[in-house]
């Protein structure tokens, strides 16, 4: 097939340029045969100098805190005052920390609830805007706006609109006979979670749409034409051509959405403040509370390490599962 030839050539050819310093041609600054050592030393010097600021920032504000966090998690570090090395005691106490365990369960549940709707809605929207018809550019922009505006501003708006009897949510839903006009959304944890899930699905579908649309537009049109000549229906073309060729985009959009949900903080902090009780405390929020309200930095760091491991696992599993047998 013509298309597979074209794409098959790309990875090998493209990556080859990234080889060793001595390779003449594509990548190095001086592109012709030369006294190798002087040139490559100069290349190394200039290259390192150019990339040093980026490396320094990442080192100081990302990699160091990561290592530092692991170290702190092995101590009883309070926000102020002396600390002792206490081994794995923080991790052991996590097993009995009901708020933290509850927050993990709640966050997993929340992630499970929103992921599929975000993906399905995002996919449907991507199908709708991928063709270049009059108006699509405008539709894309408008559908994407909630994501651009950001969940923080929208959460503040939700706070006002979820007020019993005065908020727009009750006003509209009571006329549709879905809720009463005095439904207090943030007083019951089920209602609060429902409201936040709806908000997040509305907010995040646009991003999935854009990511999937970008992938869809990279699929050669001939594939669809030949499928049509073969008499394939729209649905079977979608299943046999779009979905397999879209694996990477699907993996990426799912990873972004799942990891994003698992790291949720803003909407819960702003709309429910974890309530009622601690029923809507997300993992990041329980870390935040432990560190800054309880000032138990050691314990909070242990929670963070667990969070990093869980997020890493989620990413790895999804990546492996969705991409593994793709190529």
């Amino acid at each position, binding site marked *: 097939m013509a298309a597979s030839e074209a794409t098959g050539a790309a990875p090998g050819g493209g990556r080859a340029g990234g080889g060793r*310093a001595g390779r003449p041609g594509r990548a190095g*600054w001086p*592109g012709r045969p030369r006294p190798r050592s002087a040139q490559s030393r100069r290349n*190394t010097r*200039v*290259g*390192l100098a*150019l*990339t040093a*600021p*980026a*490396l320094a*920032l*990442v080192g100081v*504000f990302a*990699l*160091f*805190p990561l290592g530092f966090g692991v170290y*702190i998690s092995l101590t009883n*570090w309070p926000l102020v005052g002396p600390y002792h090395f206490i081994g794995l005691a923080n991790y052991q106490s996590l097993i009995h920390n009901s708020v933290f365990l509850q927050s993990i369960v709640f966050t997993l549940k929340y992630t499970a609830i929103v992921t599929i709707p975000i993906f399905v809605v995002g996919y449907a929207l991507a199908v*709708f805007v*991928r*063709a270049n*018809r*009059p*108006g699509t*550019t*405008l539709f894309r*922009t408008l559908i994407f*706006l*909630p994501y*651009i*505006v*950001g969940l*923080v*501003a929208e959460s503040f*708006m939700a706070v*006002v609109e979820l007020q019993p009897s*005065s908020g*727009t949510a009750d006003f509209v839903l009571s006329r549709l006979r879905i809720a009463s*006009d005095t439904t207090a959304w943030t007083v019951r944890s089920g209602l609060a979670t429902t409201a936040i899930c709806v908000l997040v699905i*509305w907010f995040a579908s646009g991003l999935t749409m854009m*990511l999937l649309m*970008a992938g869809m*537009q*990279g*699929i050669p*049109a001939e594939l*669809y034409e030949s499928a049509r000549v073969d008499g394939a229906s*729209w649905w079977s073309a979608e299943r046999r051509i779009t979905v397999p060729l879209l694996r990477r985009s699907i993996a*990426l959009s799912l990873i972004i959405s799942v990891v994003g949900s698992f*790291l949720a*903080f*803003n909407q819960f902090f*702003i709309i429910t403040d974890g309530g009622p009780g601690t029923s809507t405390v997300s993992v*990041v929020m329980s*870390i*935040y509370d432990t560190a800054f309200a309880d000032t138990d930095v050691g314990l909070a760091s242990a929670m*963070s390490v667990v969070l*990093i491991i869980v997020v890493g696992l989620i990413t790895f599993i999804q990546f492996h599962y969705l991409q593994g047998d793709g190529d």
Partner: protein
Amino acid sequence: MASVRSGRPQPGAPPAPASDDRARAAGRRARPAGRAAGRGDRGGLVLYIVAGVAISAVFVVPLLWEVFRSLQPESAVTTPPSGANLSHLTFANYRTLLSGQDDIIRNVMNSLIVAVLTAVLTALVSMLAGYGFGLFRFRGSGLVFGLVLLAFMIPFQAVLTPLFLELHFLRLLNSLIGLALFYTTFNLPVGVYVMRNSFLQVPREIVDAARVDGASVMRTLLTVLRPLVLPGIATAALYAFLFSWTEFLGALSFMTNDSLFTLPVALSNVETGTYGAVNYGLLLAGAVIAMIPCIVVYVALQRYYVRGLISGALKG
């Protein structure tokens, strides 16, 4: 407007899109625009536009409605909606919010300073690093690139506590510069990735010609290459600006001094009534103010935003 102009039926091969420059690279569209091509197309087109307007409304009307609500007096925001209070519109919420007392202007300025600083720093550092990774093959470049991208795998939410202590030691807590450095770091993976790709796409001959002319490394970057990679720079800066403007958790953790709060943190104080009684009218007005720069910047520069998404989507 584009949507109105071409109301005629479209044959199988659709025209190149006006705004998506990626389409040029891809060569053709994903799918013939005229699936319903032929005689029934005009009807299909009308149906498509009607559906598009309806779907767009789902995403935009809530935002517009909040703008409208923010123009209602506070009393109308907190009482059951009725026909009477729909007609009374006023800038009172905005006047109160912006009239010294709550000092929200200072918070807007803080947000703006941090967002612009983050955008400039991200663009600058990403440009240099992209230049290095893209055009200089050097020993260890793979390792350095891997380390920079590693920041992408570290959720900043998970290093917040150690970072708080570190910023404290560095005297960068309660510092707009400290906040901007933190934001810049976590925008670098995307920025460096985009910039490296931009430099990799620069035609080899141009780089060679500059070298033959004896231009120095920096001179080549600033005079010859800069115009070629400017779209990439715009992408990196745009992402960083939007990230910084809408970020909440970091600012909430690292800023404890009222006068240094960014807008979202200040609004969370309005919400909980730290500045006196809770005023939902003010909260709505503040949220609308927070929304405006995002929309303006995005609508003006959206082709650069889409570029970034695509380079991310294709990287796999």
